[in-house]
Structures are given as structure tokens and as C-alpha cells.
């Protein structure tokens, strides 16, 4: 049977939406499952329900009562915010140099920065541990802030350099003729134009710092210094042989919410076309 044009179009549309539905379910289902699980206790945890039969908030209460989870969240916020602030500040100034100035070894240096991120985390772990001990930062949040820059700086520098290079050179020259000093040019002319890039890279850096596990596990010791991923992983139940799945899921839901909020806020800043009108394009 040959299908008419309208029928083929309808089939194509059905196919498209079916594919979209599969992708949405695939990505959202795990999160949905943790929400459902976080509202169950006891043996209900091991039954398969799409909706919790009788939802309870006990797990959400317990994670804050039985361990310093609020403190862990605070640690994570502190570390992530500090990492974002530091890497953006360093990356913007580095990108200004890489994108705007010509100097010997520019490409080599850029590649070196990228190379830093190529080593597997485990490979740098022991060396980094020695460094952290030597600096006296063991079991301190500063150790995490410092070491997370290894992950965040390469991509923040690279992305911002690319953006910086695409800003029209005439803008800088116009500002120079207007009497602006380099720092003024960076802060008053370039920074406002880089907001979308800053929002994107800042968000990525935040997520990296928020979710990092291995360094956080290695460089902290006490419950009070742990960040959220480690705290969740090391949660223990009533006995050694019991994993408190309900609480783990509740904790996961709690720490994902700030990320979602952050993405929604940043999304409004990630708008294109900020440079429209600068030069005739």
C-alpha cells in the first residue's frame, strides 16, 4: 500500500514524538525513581511502585537528624562557589591574554593548559595528596578548592579564549582611543559581552565541583569536612549490613534541586546575540 503525502507526514511526526518520549523517559526516569524511593521506608523500598503507596517525608528528616548533612551541603556550596569564582576570575584574565595579545609561546601554553586535564584523576591523586599534606591543607575545604581548579581551569580558559577572540578588535581600539585602561576595557567592555560565556562555563564548573567524588573522599577525613557526594556515599544505616536506600535517595534529591535552580537562573543569561549592533555583521 502506498501512503499519501499527508499520511507519510503524520507517520514521521509520530516517529519523532515517540523518539522524543523515549529520550525523555531515559533521562528523567532515574531521577523520578529516586524521588519515589526517597518517600518509602522499610520493606516498601523493595517493591516496584510507580507512585509510593503511602508517601512519607521521614527520610528527608532523618538525613539532617542523623548526620551533619546540612553542614555537608554548606561545604559543597562553599567549595563550588569558590571554585567558580576563582576559575572565572583566573580564566577571564588568562583569556584576555590568550585571545587579545600576541606573545611568544601562546599556542604552546594553551595546549599545556589543555594537557593538564588529560591525565586520569587517579594518576594525579597520589601526587596531589602529597602536595595537599605538604601545604597543610589535609582535611580542609581549601584542599578541594585548590585541586578542583585542575578540572575547571582548562575548559574555562579554552571556552573564554574562544569567545574573547570572537569579540571585535575594533571595540578594544575604540575603547583605547576613548582613553580606557586595559583593566577598564576588560571589566567595562569585554566582561558584559562575555556574560553568556561566563554563565555557561561557570555553570559547568559548578557542576564539576558539586559532583566531584574522588578528591573529596581522599582529601577529607572527618564527617564535618565532607562534601555532599562523599557524605551520601558513606551514609550508613542502623547496622553495618544495611544500606539506607531511602535516605540516600532523599539526600540525592535534596542536592540535585540547587543544581536545577542554578541551571534555570543561568539559562536566562545564556542568550546569544549580545554583541549584535557592535559592528556591521
Amino acid at each position, binding site marked *: 500500500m502506498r501512503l499519501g503525502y499527508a499520511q507519510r507526514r503524520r507517520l514521521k511526526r509520530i516517529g519523532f514524538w515517540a523518539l522524543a518520549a523515549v529520550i525523555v523517559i531515559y533521562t528523567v526516569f532515574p531521577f523520578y525513581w529516586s524521588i519515589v524511593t526517597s518517600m518509602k521506608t522499610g520493606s516498601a523500598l523493595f517493591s516496584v511502585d510507580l507512585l509510593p503507596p503511602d508517601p512519607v517525608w521521614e527520610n528527608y528528616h532523618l538525613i539532617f537528624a542523623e548526620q551533619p548533612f546540612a553542614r555537608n551541603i554548606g561545604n559543597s556550596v562553599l567549595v563550588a562557589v569558590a571554585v567558580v569564582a576563582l576559575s572565572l576570575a583566573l580564566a577571564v584574565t588568562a583569556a584576555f591574554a590568550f585571545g587579545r595579545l600576541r606573545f611568544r609561546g601562546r599556542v604552546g601554553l594553551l595546549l599545556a593548559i589543555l594537557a593538564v586535564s588529560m591525565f586520569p584523576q587517579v594518576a594525579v591523586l597520589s601526587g596531589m595528596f602529597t602536595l595537599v599534606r605538604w601545604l597543610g591543607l589535609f582535611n580542609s575545604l581549601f584542599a578541594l578548592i585548590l585541586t578542583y581548579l585542575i578540572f575547571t581551569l582548562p575548559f574555562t580558559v579554552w571556552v573564554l579564549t574562544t569567545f574573547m577572540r570572537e569579540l571585535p578588535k575594533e*571595540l578594544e581600539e575604540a575603547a*583605547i*582611543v576613548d582613553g580606557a585602561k586595559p583593566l577598564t576595557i576588560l571589566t567595562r567592555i569585554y566582561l558584559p559581552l562575555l556574560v553568556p560565556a561566563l554563565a555557561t562555563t561557570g555553570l559547568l564548573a559548578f557542576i564539576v565541583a558539586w559532583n566531584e567524588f574522588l578528591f573529596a573522599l581522599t582529601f577529607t577525613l572527618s564527617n564535618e569536612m565532607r562534601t555532599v557526594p562523599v557524605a551520601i556515599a558513606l551514609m550508613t544505616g542502623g547496622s553495618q549490613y544495611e544500606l539506607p536506600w531511602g535516605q540516600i535517595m532523599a539526600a540525592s534529591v535534596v542536592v540535585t534541586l540547587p543544581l536545577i535552580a542554578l541551571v534555570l537562573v543561568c539559562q536566562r543569561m545564556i542568550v546569544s546575540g549580545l554583541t549584535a549592533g*557592535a*559592528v556591521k555583521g
Partner: protein
Amino acid sequence: MARIGLSQVTKRFGGTEAVSGLDLDIADGEFVVVVGPSGCGKSTLLRLVAGLEDVSSGDVRIDGQVVNDLPPPERGIAMVFQSYALYPHMTVRKNMAFGLSQAKLRREEIDRRVRASATRLRIEDLLDRKPKSLSGGQRQRVAIGRAIVREPKLFLFDEPLSNLDAALRVEMRMEIAKLRRDLNATVLYVTHDQTEAMTLADRIVILNQGRVEQVGEPLELYRRPRNIFVAGFIGTPAINLLPCTLGSGAEGTVIVLPGDRTMPLPETLRACFGAGEVPSRITLGWRPEAVNLRGGTGGRKDAITLGVEVETVEHLGAETFVHARLDQRTIVTATAGANFQAQPGQRVAFELPLNRCHVFDGEGATLHHPSSGEEG
């Protein structure tokens, strides 16, 4: 207002010289247009005066003071960029005020100047808009406004009209001419458009490969070009250039025109060489308006008459350009009256009066140009 002096200014980028040993003096309040083909170094020249590039050697003087080591803001200049370079995140008002606030002027003074400039350029209504919501012509005005609020000694324009469409370009050209009269400022203006140069300039500087070919008033360059390059660059349609060779024949010196047409060297041309040796190669040039169209052949004694084949006829309304082929390589253009009609392929005769002929030697330097009374 300011006097500008460039002496032996050279700028090298790596191995190439963008500007070589350039001398130029600009008087107070003068409007000088630098014109030349792309890559001739004209934008570099402007950037050297602005201070956006450093000279490799030589001196740039403003009001007699050497400014080689002064940064741009201390040179008392304002620059209008080809791409406008407006700050996209700032309103028109902030764009215009930015330079003044960097100079730490008082707020009331900044306000006063921005408003005065906006009124002058008729952009008062746009002050709170951002560049992206402006049209090309409006952006151009804002860019000029940003320059005039600073009340500079010297205005630098870098091809300011090249991004505008034709109609707007003519309008802005007149506006710049008017603005310049009002401000009475010294202006250095770079363009590749010789019409802009002819219409705006007090004096034109013709630049080619980093060197000055000729400096002079627009009509002087048109009537008395110093060499083939200047003759060919100024004027639309371009001057007709006929490369010729000179040799000796039975009746004395003969001239061989393109298409291997040989004729005795007319006495008028003989006079150009003076008492000196007759060169072996010369180039003859006629402006299109000097070429007369004739129906028949056989012509006047004081003119060279060429039989040509019409290629294209361009009716512009008031006048007509006739492009005709002399031989494989040579096209000759004539200006004809509004009603001239001819079909492509038709044979016509072009009469080239000797008294309106430019003569160039083998190296391209001018040997003779028509006296200005006859040209024009």
C-alpha cells in the same frame, strides 16, 4: 584644530613595509583624504596617527610635538571606525559618554556635550536605545557622535561610509562635509572610494604600496596627475591609456598605436619631449569626456582617429558611456550625449584630440598634460 606632520614615517609588519618613508603635512583645519587601492597602507597610516600602531621609524607630530610615544587618548584625537565599533551593551547615550567619563569630566558637562552632539546629528530620540536596534545610518551617526563629543583636535575617519548602501552613502557624505564646516576641525579621512575623496577633500593624498604617489587638490589631481597610477586611479570611468612605441621610419619618427597602427609622430607630441631624446615607449591618455564620437572615418589633423567596435553602451540618463574595443587587449571609453544610440558590434570612430592628451613616459611618469583651460 591641529597641525599634523609626518616625516619619513615607516611601518614594517614582519618583513613587509606597509608604509615607507612617508612625508605629509596637514594644515590646521584642513580636510585631507587618503585614498588608494586596498592594501596600499592607508589604514595603517591612520592607525599610526591615532597611536594604535607604533611607527617603525620616523616621526609623527601633532601641533609640532612629536607624539610617537604618546598613547592614543593623549593625542587629542577621535576616531570613527569602518565597523562603527559601538559598545553593544551600552545605550547610545553611554556610548557617547564613555570617553568623557574616562577623562573624568563632570557629570553635567558630559550631559551637556552628549545632548549638544546628539542634537547636531539629529539622534536625540535614539539616546536611550542600544546599537542593535539602530539602522546602519543611525549607527554611523552615533559613531560620529561619539567622536565629536570629545571635541578633539583631530578627527580620524577609517572608511566610515563603506558599510552603507549607495543612497545613504551620498547623504552621509554631504552630512560629513557640513559637519566639517561647522566644526572647523582638522580631518584625516581614509577611503578607497575616489568619489568620496574628490567630493570631501581639501587635498587628496594618493597612496600606493606604502608610498605617496601625489598630494594635491582634487581637481589638480584630476587635471594634472603626476603619473599613470594617479591618472588611472582618479576619475570614473577611468582614463583611457594607450601604450605606444616610437620608432624611426621613412618620414622621420613614427608612433605605433595599439592594433599596430603606425602614423607619423604628430608635432604636438614631438614637443613634449623637448630637446631631449625621444623615448622608445610612451603611453597616451585621454579622459572619456575628451574622446569625441564621429560617424565617419578620416579625421582632423590635430587628433588621432581610431576605428573601434562598440562593446557596451551604458545609458546613465544625463550622459552615456560607450565602451568600445580597439584591439584584443584595449578597450576605449567615451562619454557621449544622453541620446546616443549604438548596437554592440557596430563600428564607430573615436576621435582623440591631441590638445587633450596626457603623455606618460615608459616608467609611467607624466611628460605632458593638457593645459587646464582645454580640459574641463
